[in-house]
Protein backbone atom coordinates (compact mmCIF):
# COMPACT_ATOMS: atom_id res chain seq x y z
CA UNK A 1 0.00 0.00 0.00
CA UNK A 2 1.30 3.39 -1.01
CA UNK A 3 -0.56 5.33 1.69
CA UNK A 4 -0.51 3.96 5.24
CA UNK A 5 -1.52 6.72 7.64
CA UNK A 6 -4.70 8.78 7.93
CA UNK A 7 -2.39 11.81 7.97
CA UNK A 8 -1.18 10.95 4.47
CA UNK A 9 -4.74 11.88 3.44
CA UNK A 10 -5.75 14.54 6.00
CA UNK A 11 -2.46 16.35 5.53
CA UNK A 12 0.21 17.45 5.07
CA UNK A 13 -0.17 20.93 6.49
CA UNK A 14 1.62 22.88 3.80
CA UNK A 15 2.00 26.06 1.88
CA UNK A 16 -0.33 26.19 -1.18
CA UNK A 17 -1.13 25.87 -3.98
CA UNK A 18 -0.53 22.20 -4.98
CA UNK A 19 0.19 19.10 -2.88
CA UNK A 20 1.80 17.19 -5.75
CA UNK A 21 3.46 20.15 -7.46
CA UNK A 22 4.38 22.25 -4.39
CA UNK A 23 4.48 20.05 -1.25
CA UNK A 24 5.77 17.00 -3.18
CA UNK A 25 8.49 19.11 -4.76
CA UNK A 26 9.58 20.43 -1.34
CA UNK A 27 9.81 16.84 -0.13
CA UNK A 28 11.88 15.65 -3.10
CA UNK A 29 14.17 18.63 -2.48
CA UNK A 30 14.47 17.72 1.23
CA UNK A 31 15.34 14.10 0.41
CA UNK A 32 17.88 15.05 -2.26
CA UNK A 33 19.53 17.43 0.19
CA UNK A 34 19.54 14.77 2.93
CA UNK A 35 21.15 12.27 0.55
CA UNK A 36 23.77 14.85 -0.48
CA UNK A 37 24.38 15.46 3.23
CA UNK A 38 25.32 19.15 3.07
CA UNK A 39 24.32 22.43 1.48
CA UNK A 40 25.29 22.46 -2.20
CA UNK A 41 26.91 25.39 -4.01
CA UNK A 42 25.09 24.67 -7.28
CA UNK A 43 21.60 23.30 -7.91
CA UNK A 44 20.09 22.21 -11.22
CA UNK A 45 16.42 21.23 -11.27
CA UNK A 46 15.09 19.25 -14.24
CA UNK A 47 11.28 19.16 -14.65
CA UNK A 48 9.56 16.36 -16.57
CA UNK A 49 5.96 15.70 -17.68
CA UNK A 50 3.28 17.74 -15.91
CA UNK A 51 6.05 19.39 -13.86
CA UNK A 52 7.67 20.66 -17.09
CA UNK A 53 4.41 22.21 -18.29
CA UNK A 54 3.21 23.84 -15.09
CA UNK A 55 6.18 24.35 -12.80
CA UNK A 56 5.93 28.13 -12.77
CA UNK A 57 2.20 28.24 -12.03
CA UNK A 58 2.42 25.75 -9.18
CA UNK A 59 5.65 27.25 -7.86
CA UNK A 60 7.27 23.81 -8.29
CA UNK A 61 10.59 25.54 -9.01
CA UNK A 62 10.45 27.64 -5.84
CA UNK A 63 9.24 24.64 -3.80
CA UNK A 64 11.95 22.23 -4.97
CA UNK A 65 14.64 24.83 -4.30
CA UNK A 66 13.16 25.49 -0.83
CA UNK A 67 13.43 21.74 -0.18
CA UNK A 68 17.10 21.71 -1.21
CA UNK A 69 17.65 24.67 1.17
CA UNK A 70 16.00 22.62 3.98
CA UNK A 71 13.13 25.07 4.51
CA UNK A 72 10.28 23.25 6.33
CA UNK A 73 7.09 22.29 4.49
CA UNK A 74 4.83 24.74 6.34
CA UNK A 75 7.24 27.70 6.44
CA UNK A 76 6.08 30.78 4.49
CA UNK A 77 9.79 31.37 3.69
CA UNK A 78 9.33 28.80 0.89
CA UNK A 79 8.07 31.72 -1.21
CA UNK A 80 11.48 33.44 -0.82
CA UNK A 81 13.64 30.42 -1.72
CA UNK A 82 15.19 32.08 -4.78
CA UNK A 83 16.25 35.15 -2.80
CA UNK A 84 17.59 32.98 0.05
CA UNK A 85 19.65 30.90 -2.40
CA UNK A 86 21.20 33.98 -3.97
CA UNK A 87 21.98 35.45 -0.51
CA UNK A 88 23.84 32.25 0.32
CA UNK A 89 25.68 32.39 -3.00
CA UNK A 90 24.10 29.21 -4.37
CA UNK A 91 23.72 29.11 -8.14
CA UNK A 92 20.42 27.70 -9.42
CA UNK A 93 19.30 26.54 -12.88
CA UNK A 94 15.82 25.40 -13.94
CA UNK A 95 15.48 23.06 -16.92
CA UNK A 96 12.07 22.04 -18.33
CA UNK A 97 12.60 18.72 -20.18
CA UNK A 98 10.70 17.40 -23.23
CA UNK A 99 11.36 13.70 -22.53
CA UNK A 100 8.25 11.74 -21.48
CA UNK A 101 8.84 10.26 -18.01
CA UNK A 102 7.38 7.04 -16.56
CA UNK A 103 5.50 9.13 -14.00
CA UNK A 104 3.94 12.50 -14.97
CA UNK A 105 5.34 14.35 -11.94
CA UNK A 106 9.07 13.73 -12.16
CA UNK A 107 11.84 15.96 -10.83
CA UNK A 108 15.58 15.39 -11.18
CA UNK A 109 17.82 17.27 -8.75
CA UNK A 110 21.55 17.75 -9.40
CA UNK A 111 23.56 19.05 -6.46
CA UNK A 112 27.24 19.87 -6.35
CA UNK A 113 30.01 21.62 -4.48
CA UNK A 114 33.82 21.53 -4.51
CA UNK A 115 33.81 18.13 -2.80
CA UNK A 116 31.56 16.37 -5.28
CA UNK A 117 28.24 16.04 -7.02
CA UNK A 118 25.13 13.89 -6.88
CA UNK A 119 21.97 13.43 -8.91
CA UNK A 120 18.67 12.20 -7.49
CA UNK A 121 15.29 11.77 -9.14
CA UNK A 122 11.94 11.72 -7.37
CA UNK A 123 8.30 11.32 -8.36
CA UNK A 124 5.39 13.05 -6.67
CA UNK A 125 2.56 10.55 -6.43
CA UNK A 126 -0.19 12.73 -5.00
CA UNK A 127 -1.23 14.36 -1.74
CA UNK A 128 2.37 15.39 -1.02
CA UNK A 129 3.71 11.80 -1.01
CA UNK A 130 6.87 11.09 -3.01
CA UNK A 131 9.23 8.30 -3.98
CA UNK A 132 12.88 8.69 -4.90
CA UNK A 133 13.50 6.61 -8.02
CA UNK A 134 17.14 7.25 -8.89
CA UNK A 135 20.39 8.20 -7.19
CA UNK A 136 23.57 8.68 -9.24
CA UNK A 137 22.20 6.58 -12.08
CA UNK A 138 21.05 3.69 -9.89
CA UNK A 139 17.34 3.01 -9.87
CA UNK A 140 15.70 2.51 -6.49
CA UNK A 141 12.44 3.00 -4.62
CA UNK A 142 12.76 5.08 -1.51
CA UNK A 143 9.74 6.61 0.25
CA UNK A 144 11.68 8.75 2.68
CA UNK A 145 9.18 7.73 5.37
CA UNK A 146 11.72 5.65 7.32
CA UNK A 147 15.44 5.98 8.05
CA UNK A 148 17.45 4.49 5.20
CA UNK A 149 20.96 3.44 4.20
CA UNK A 150 22.22 3.67 0.64
CA UNK A 151 25.30 1.50 0.35
CA UNK A 152 27.41 1.61 -2.79
CA UNK A 153 29.48 -1.53 -2.96
CA UNK A 154 31.35 -3.95 -5.18
CA UNK A 155 29.10 -6.59 -6.69
CA UNK A 156 30.72 -9.53 -4.89
CA UNK A 157 29.42 -12.46 -2.89
CA UNK A 158 29.10 -12.03 0.86
CA UNK A 159 28.86 -8.23 0.73
CA UNK A 160 25.14 -8.05 1.50
CA UNK A 161 25.51 -10.61 4.28
CA UNK A 162 28.31 -8.58 5.87
CA UNK A 163 26.00 -5.54 6.07
CA UNK A 164 22.86 -7.32 7.28
CA UNK A 165 24.94 -9.08 9.96
CA UNK A 166 25.99 -5.68 11.35
CA UNK A 167 22.36 -4.53 11.37
CA UNK A 168 21.31 -7.70 13.19
CA UNK A 169 24.04 -7.18 15.79
CA UNK A 170 22.86 -3.58 16.24
CA UNK A 171 19.28 -4.81 16.77
CA UNK A 172 18.11 -2.82 13.74
CA UNK A 173 15.00 -4.12 11.96
CA UNK A 174 14.84 -3.86 8.14
CA UNK A 175 11.43 -2.93 6.72
CA UNK A 176 12.40 -2.75 3.05
CA UNK A 177 15.50 -3.72 1.14
CA UNK A 178 16.55 -3.84 -2.49
CA UNK A 179 19.71 -4.20 -4.51
CA UNK A 180 20.42 -2.87 -8.00
CA UNK A 181 23.44 -3.12 -10.26
CA UNK A 182 24.46 -0.38 -12.67
CA UNK A 183 25.81 -1.14 -16.10
CA UNK A 184 28.74 1.06 -15.16
CA UNK A 185 31.11 -1.75 -14.28
CA UNK A 186 30.99 -3.62 -11.03
CA UNK A 187 29.24 -1.23 -8.65
CA UNK A 188 25.97 -2.11 -6.96
CA UNK A 189 23.62 -0.20 -4.70
CA UNK A 190 21.94 -1.67 -1.64
CA UNK A 191 18.98 0.34 -0.29
CA UNK A 192 17.90 -0.60 3.23
CA UNK A 193 14.96 1.09 4.95
CA UNK A 194 14.94 0.48 8.70
CA UNK A 195 12.51 0.91 11.59
CA UNK A 196 15.17 2.47 13.79
CA UNK A 197 17.93 5.00 13.10
CA UNK A 198 21.28 3.34 12.57
CA UNK A 199 23.94 4.40 15.09
CA UNK A 200 27.09 6.14 13.74
CA UNK A 201 29.37 3.37 15.08
CA UNK A 202 27.44 0.78 13.06
CA UNK A 203 27.89 2.94 9.94
CA UNK A 204 31.63 3.26 10.70
CA UNK A 205 31.85 -0.48 10.98
CA UNK A 206 30.09 -0.86 7.62
CA UNK A 207 32.60 1.47 6.00
CA UNK A 208 35.40 -0.82 7.22
CA UNK A 209 33.91 -3.91 5.54
CA UNK A 210 35.47 -5.32 2.41
CA UNK A 211 34.01 -4.11 -0.92
CA UNK A 212 32.06 -1.15 0.56
CA UNK A 213 32.65 2.07 -1.40
CA UNK A 214 30.31 4.57 0.25
CA UNK A 215 27.47 4.61 2.79
CA UNK A 216 24.85 7.37 2.67
CA UNK A 217 22.47 7.63 5.61
CA UNK A 218 19.04 9.16 5.47
CA UNK A 219 17.92 10.06 8.98
CA UNK A 220 14.20 10.76 9.23
Amino acid sequence: MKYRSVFDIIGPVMLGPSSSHTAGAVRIGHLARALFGREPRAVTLHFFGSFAKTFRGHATDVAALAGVLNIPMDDPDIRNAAAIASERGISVAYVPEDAVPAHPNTLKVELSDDAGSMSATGISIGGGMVQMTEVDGFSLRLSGESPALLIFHKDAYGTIASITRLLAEGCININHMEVSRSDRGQTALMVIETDEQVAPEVIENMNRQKNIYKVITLNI
Partner: protein
Amino acid sequence: MFRNISELVEQAGDGSISGVMLEAEAESTGKAKEEIISRMADQLQVMKRSAREGLQGLRARSGLCGGDALLLDRYIQKGSRLTGGAFPRAVNYAVAVNEANAHMGIICASPTAGACGVLPGVLLAAQEHLGKSDEAITMALFCAGAVGLVIANNACISGAQGGCQAEVGSAAAMAAAAVTELAGGTAEQAANAAAIALKNMLGLPCDPLAGLVEVPCIKRNAGGAANAMAAAEMALAGIKSMVPCDEVIETMYRIGINMSPSLRETAQGGLAGTPTGRRWKSLLWENESPQPQP
Protein backbone atom coordinates in the same frame (compact mmCIF):
# COMPACT_ATOMS: atom_id res chain seq x y z
CA MET B 1 -6.15 -2.50 8.18
CA PHE B 2 -9.03 -2.40 5.73
CA ARG B 3 -8.28 -2.81 2.03
CA ASN B 4 -11.52 -1.49 0.58
CA ILE B 5 -14.80 0.20 1.48
CA SER B 6 -16.72 -3.04 1.96
CA GLU B 7 -14.15 -4.23 4.55
CA LEU B 8 -14.36 -0.82 6.19
CA VAL B 9 -18.15 -1.07 6.55
CA GLU B 10 -17.89 -4.67 7.74
CA GLN B 11 -15.29 -3.78 10.40
CA ALA B 12 -17.42 -0.83 11.54
CA GLY B 13 -20.40 -3.12 12.24
CA ASP B 14 -22.79 -1.10 14.39
CA GLY B 15 -20.03 1.40 15.09
CA SER B 16 -18.51 4.07 12.87
CA ILE B 17 -15.96 4.28 10.07
CA SER B 18 -14.25 7.00 12.14
CA GLY B 19 -13.75 4.48 14.95
CA VAL B 20 -12.27 1.87 12.60
CA MET B 21 -9.81 4.41 11.19
CA LEU B 22 -8.70 5.52 14.64
CA GLU B 23 -8.15 1.89 15.73
CA ALA B 24 -6.21 1.11 12.55
CA GLU B 25 -3.99 4.19 12.94
CA ALA B 26 -3.27 3.33 16.58
CA GLU B 27 -2.45 -0.25 15.64
CA SER B 28 -0.18 0.56 12.68
CA THR B 29 1.75 3.37 14.41
CA GLY B 30 1.75 2.05 17.99
CA LYS B 31 0.73 5.51 19.17
CA ALA B 32 -1.88 6.27 21.83
CA LYS B 33 -5.34 7.20 20.53
CA GLU B 34 -5.25 10.50 22.46
CA GLU B 35 -2.07 11.51 20.62
CA ILE B 36 -3.59 10.64 17.24
CA ILE B 37 -6.82 12.52 18.01
CA SER B 38 -4.85 15.53 19.19
CA ARG B 39 -2.89 15.62 15.93
CA MET B 40 -6.15 15.44 13.96
CA ALA B 41 -7.55 18.28 16.07
CA ASP B 42 -4.53 20.35 14.94
CA GLN B 43 -5.36 19.62 11.29
CA LEU B 44 -8.92 20.88 11.95
CA GLN B 45 -7.54 24.13 13.38
CA VAL B 46 -5.42 24.62 10.23
CA MET B 47 -8.60 24.14 8.16
CA LYS B 48 -10.46 26.72 10.25
CA ARG B 49 -7.63 29.25 10.00
CA SER B 50 -7.44 28.86 6.23
CA ALA B 51 -11.22 29.37 5.94
CA ARG B 52 -11.01 32.54 8.02
CA GLU B 53 -8.07 33.75 5.94
CA GLY B 54 -10.01 33.18 2.72
CA LEU B 55 -13.06 35.05 4.03
CA GLN B 56 -10.92 38.21 4.25
CA GLY B 57 -11.15 38.54 0.47
CA LEU B 58 -7.70 37.49 -0.75
CA ARG B 59 -6.61 38.11 -4.32
CA ALA B 60 -4.13 35.77 -6.02
CA ARG B 61 -0.93 37.19 -7.49
CA SER B 62 -1.95 36.01 -10.95
CA GLY B 63 -5.03 38.23 -11.08
CA LEU B 64 -7.06 35.18 -12.09
CA CYS B 65 -9.05 34.80 -8.91
CA GLY B 66 -9.86 36.06 -5.46
CA GLY B 67 -12.47 37.87 -3.42
CA ASP B 68 -15.28 35.41 -4.15
CA ALA B 69 -15.50 33.97 -0.63
CA LEU B 70 -16.06 37.48 0.67
CA LEU B 71 -18.82 38.10 -1.93
CA LEU B 72 -20.54 34.87 -0.87
CA ASP B 73 -20.22 35.74 2.80
CA ARG B 74 -21.94 39.11 2.30
CA TYR B 75 -24.62 37.52 0.12
CA ILE B 76 -25.40 34.83 2.72
CA GLN B 77 -25.50 37.37 5.54
CA LYS B 78 -28.15 39.33 3.64
CA GLY B 79 -30.13 36.09 3.19
CA SER B 80 -29.29 33.78 0.30
CA ARG B 81 -32.21 33.60 -2.11
CA LEU B 82 -32.39 29.93 -3.04
CA THR B 83 -30.96 27.56 -0.45
CA GLY B 84 -30.51 27.64 3.31
CA GLY B 85 -29.12 25.59 6.17
CA ALA B 86 -25.58 24.31 5.83
CA PHE B 87 -25.61 24.37 2.02
CA PRO B 88 -24.63 27.94 1.06
CA ARG B 89 -22.00 28.04 3.81
CA ALA B 90 -20.45 24.78 2.57
CA VAL B 91 -20.02 26.46 -0.82
CA ASN B 92 -18.73 29.63 0.87
CA TYR B 93 -16.11 27.92 3.05
CA ALA B 94 -14.93 25.66 0.24
CA VAL B 95 -14.21 28.77 -1.86
CA ALA B 96 -12.57 30.49 1.12
CA VAL B 97 -10.11 27.66 1.83
CA ASN B 98 -9.18 27.31 -1.83
CA GLU B 99 -8.66 31.03 -2.21
CA ALA B 100 -6.27 30.84 0.77
CA ASN B 101 -4.47 27.99 -1.03
CA ALA B 102 -4.19 29.93 -4.30
CA HIS B 103 -2.75 32.80 -2.28
CA MET B 104 0.05 30.45 -1.08
CA GLY B 105 -1.46 30.32 2.41
CA ILE B 106 -0.98 27.49 4.90
CA ILE B 107 -3.58 24.77 4.28
CA CYS B 108 -4.21 21.15 5.21
CA ALA B 109 -4.24 18.96 2.08
CA SER B 110 -7.37 16.77 2.07
CA PRO B 111 -6.56 14.66 0.16
CA THR B 112 -4.62 17.20 -1.96
CA ALA B 113 -4.05 20.95 -1.91
CA GLY B 114 -6.03 21.48 -5.11
CA ALA B 115 -9.05 19.86 -3.44
CA CYS B 116 -8.42 21.22 0.06
CA GLY B 117 -11.64 23.27 0.22
CA VAL B 118 -14.23 20.51 -0.11
CA LEU B 119 -13.85 18.75 3.24
CA PRO B 120 -13.55 21.87 5.44
CA GLY B 121 -16.35 23.50 3.45
CA VAL B 122 -18.77 20.66 4.18
CA LEU B 123 -17.70 19.93 7.75
CA LEU B 124 -17.40 23.52 9.03
CA ALA B 125 -20.80 24.40 7.57
CA ALA B 126 -22.33 21.26 9.07
CA GLN B 127 -20.69 22.04 12.41
CA GLU B 128 -22.41 25.43 12.56
CA HIS B 129 -25.72 24.12 11.32
CA LEU B 130 -25.86 21.07 13.60
CA GLY B 131 -24.17 22.75 16.59
CA LYS B 132 -21.43 20.08 16.76
CA SER B 133 -18.28 20.32 18.89
CA ASP B 134 -14.73 20.45 17.52
CA GLU B 135 -14.28 16.92 18.96
CA ALA B 136 -17.13 15.64 16.78
CA ILE B 137 -15.67 17.29 13.66
CA THR B 138 -12.24 15.87 14.49
CA MET B 139 -13.75 12.36 14.57
CA ALA B 140 -15.51 13.01 11.26
CA LEU B 141 -12.08 13.77 9.74
CA PHE B 142 -11.06 10.17 10.56
CA CYS B 143 -14.02 8.90 8.54
CA ALA B 144 -12.99 11.15 5.63
CA GLY B 145 -9.41 9.91 5.96
CA ALA B 146 -10.48 6.26 5.84
CA VAL B 147 -12.38 6.76 2.58
CA GLY B 148 -9.46 8.76 1.17
CA LEU B 149 -6.95 6.04 2.10
CA VAL B 150 -8.97 3.42 0.21
CA ILE B 151 -9.24 5.66 -2.85
CA ALA B 152 -5.53 6.59 -2.75
CA ASN B 153 -4.40 2.97 -2.45
CA ASN B 154 -6.88 1.41 -4.89
CA ALA B 155 -7.02 4.25 -7.42
CA CYS B 156 -5.24 7.61 -7.27
CA ILE B 157 -5.66 11.09 -5.84
CA SER B 158 -3.48 13.25 -8.11
CA GLY B 159 -4.84 15.28 -10.99
CA ALA B 160 -1.77 14.40 -13.06
CA GLN B 161 -2.69 10.71 -12.79
CA GLY B 162 -6.49 10.72 -12.71
CA GLY B 163 -7.81 14.20 -13.53
CA CYS B 164 -9.96 16.33 -11.24
CA GLN B 165 -12.23 13.34 -10.51
CA ALA B 166 -9.24 11.95 -8.52
CA GLU B 167 -8.85 15.18 -6.54
CA VAL B 168 -12.17 17.00 -6.07
CA GLY B 169 -14.05 13.74 -6.78
CA SER B 170 -12.14 11.95 -4.00
CA ALA B 171 -12.54 14.92 -1.66
CA ALA B 172 -16.30 14.96 -2.32
CA ALA B 173 -16.56 11.23 -1.56
CA MET B 174 -14.59 11.74 1.67
CA ALA B 175 -16.70 14.73 2.71
CA ALA B 176 -19.97 12.97 1.85
CA ALA B 177 -19.09 9.96 4.03
CA ALA B 178 -17.84 12.15 6.89
CA VAL B 179 -20.85 14.46 7.00
CA THR B 180 -23.21 11.46 6.77
CA GLU B 181 -21.66 9.94 9.89
CA LEU B 182 -21.60 13.35 11.57
CA ALA B 183 -25.33 13.74 10.95
CA GLY B 184 -26.02 10.36 12.55
CA GLY B 185 -25.91 8.09 9.52
CA THR B 186 -24.62 4.50 9.63
CA ALA B 187 -21.31 3.28 8.19
CA GLU B 188 -23.24 1.75 5.30
CA GLN B 189 -25.00 5.04 4.62
CA ALA B 190 -21.63 6.80 4.69
CA ALA B 191 -20.31 4.33 2.10
CA ASN B 192 -23.35 4.98 -0.08
CA ALA B 193 -22.82 8.73 0.24
CA ALA B 194 -19.18 8.33 -0.85
CA ALA B 195 -20.20 6.19 -3.83
CA ILE B 196 -22.90 8.64 -4.96
CA ALA B 197 -20.61 11.66 -4.61
CA LEU B 198 -17.77 10.03 -6.58
CA LYS B 199 -20.12 8.77 -9.30
CA ASN B 200 -21.32 12.31 -9.87
CA MET B 201 -17.78 13.51 -10.58
CA LEU B 202 -16.51 10.70 -12.82
CA GLY B 203 -14.74 11.89 -15.94
CA LEU B 204 -13.89 15.34 -14.61
CA PRO B 205 -10.60 16.54 -16.15
CA CYS B 206 -7.80 18.49 -14.48
CA ASP B 207 -7.61 21.50 -16.81
CA PRO B 208 -6.62 24.62 -14.91
CA LEU B 209 -5.86 27.85 -16.76
CA ALA B 210 -2.11 28.45 -17.06
CA GLY B 211 -1.57 25.44 -14.80
CA LEU B 212 -2.51 27.45 -11.72
CA VAL B 213 -4.63 25.91 -8.96
CA GLU B 214 -7.17 28.71 -9.39
CA VAL B 215 -9.54 28.47 -12.38
CA PRO B 216 -11.63 26.29 -12.35
CA CYS B 217 -10.26 24.65 -9.17
CA ILE B 218 -11.75 27.05 -6.64
CA LYS B 219 -15.30 26.84 -8.01
CA ARG B 220 -14.90 23.07 -8.55
CA ASN B 221 -14.21 22.77 -4.82
CA ALA B 222 -17.52 24.58 -4.26
CA GLY B 223 -19.14 22.15 -6.70
CA GLY B 224 -17.56 19.21 -4.88
CA ALA B 225 -18.90 20.47 -1.54
CA ALA B 226 -22.39 20.94 -2.99
CA ASN B 227 -22.27 17.46 -4.51
CA ALA B 228 -21.11 15.96 -1.20
CA MET B 229 -24.07 17.59 0.56
CA ALA B 230 -26.51 16.26 -2.07
CA ALA B 231 -25.02 12.75 -1.80
CA ALA B 232 -25.18 12.82 2.01
CA GLU B 233 -28.82 13.95 1.97
CA MET B 234 -29.65 11.08 -0.38
CA ALA B 235 -27.79 8.51 1.72
CA LEU B 236 -29.40 9.78 4.94
CA ALA B 237 -32.81 9.43 3.24
CA GLY B 238 -31.99 5.75 2.78
CA ILE B 239 -31.05 5.89 -0.90
CA LYS B 240 -28.42 3.34 -1.94
CA SER B 241 -25.84 3.51 -4.70
CA MET B 242 -26.72 0.83 -7.26
CA VAL B 243 -22.99 0.41 -8.04
CA PRO B 244 -21.04 -0.39 -4.82
CA CYS B 245 -18.46 2.17 -3.70
CA ASP B 246 -15.44 -0.06 -4.42
CA GLU B 247 -16.57 -0.53 -8.02
CA VAL B 248 -17.04 3.22 -8.40
CA ILE B 249 -13.48 3.77 -7.11
CA GLU B 250 -12.11 1.24 -9.60
CA THR B 251 -14.09 2.97 -12.36
CA MET B 252 -12.60 6.32 -11.44
CA TYR B 253 -9.12 4.79 -11.76
CA ARG B 254 -9.86 3.23 -15.17
CA ILE B 255 -11.33 6.48 -16.51
CA GLY B 256 -8.25 8.30 -15.20
CA ILE B 257 -5.71 6.12 -16.98
CA ASN B 258 -7.72 6.35 -20.20
CA MET B 259 -7.90 10.13 -19.99
CA SER B 260 -5.73 12.03 -22.49
CA PRO B 261 -2.61 13.52 -20.87
CA SER B 262 -3.83 16.92 -22.13
CA LEU B 263 -6.61 16.63 -19.51
CA ARG B 264 -4.36 15.64 -16.62
CA GLU B 265 -2.77 18.73 -15.12
CA THR B 266 -0.68 19.76 -18.11
CA ALA B 267 -2.41 23.12 -18.82
CA GLN B 268 -3.12 22.02 -22.39
CA GLY B 269 -6.67 20.67 -22.92
CA GLY B 270 -10.10 21.34 -21.47
CA LEU B 271 -10.67 24.84 -20.11
CA ALA B 272 -6.91 25.50 -20.25
CA GLY B 273 -7.12 25.07 -24.05
CA THR B 274 -9.92 27.62 -24.59
CA PRO B 275 -9.04 30.99 -26.18
CA THR B 276 -9.33 32.54 -22.71
CA GLY B 277 -7.15 29.81 -21.18
CA ARG B 278 -4.47 30.23 -23.85
CA ARG B 279 -4.52 34.00 -23.45
CA TRP B 280 -3.89 33.74 -19.70
CA LYS B 281 -1.18 31.18 -20.24
CA SER B 282 0.77 33.41 -22.63
CA LEU B 283 0.24 36.34 -20.30
CA LEU B 284 1.38 34.54 -17.14
CA TRP B 285 4.04 32.20 -18.51
CA GLU B 286 5.99 34.86 -20.36
CA ASN B 287 6.19 37.05 -17.27
CA GLU B 288 8.59 35.98 -14.57
CA SER B 289 6.59 37.83 -11.91
CA PRO B 290 2.91 38.00 -12.87
CA GLN B 291 1.14 41.27 -12.14
CA PRO B 292 -2.57 41.50 -11.22
CA GLN B 293 -4.76 42.35 -14.19
CA PRO B 294 -7.47 45.04 -14.08
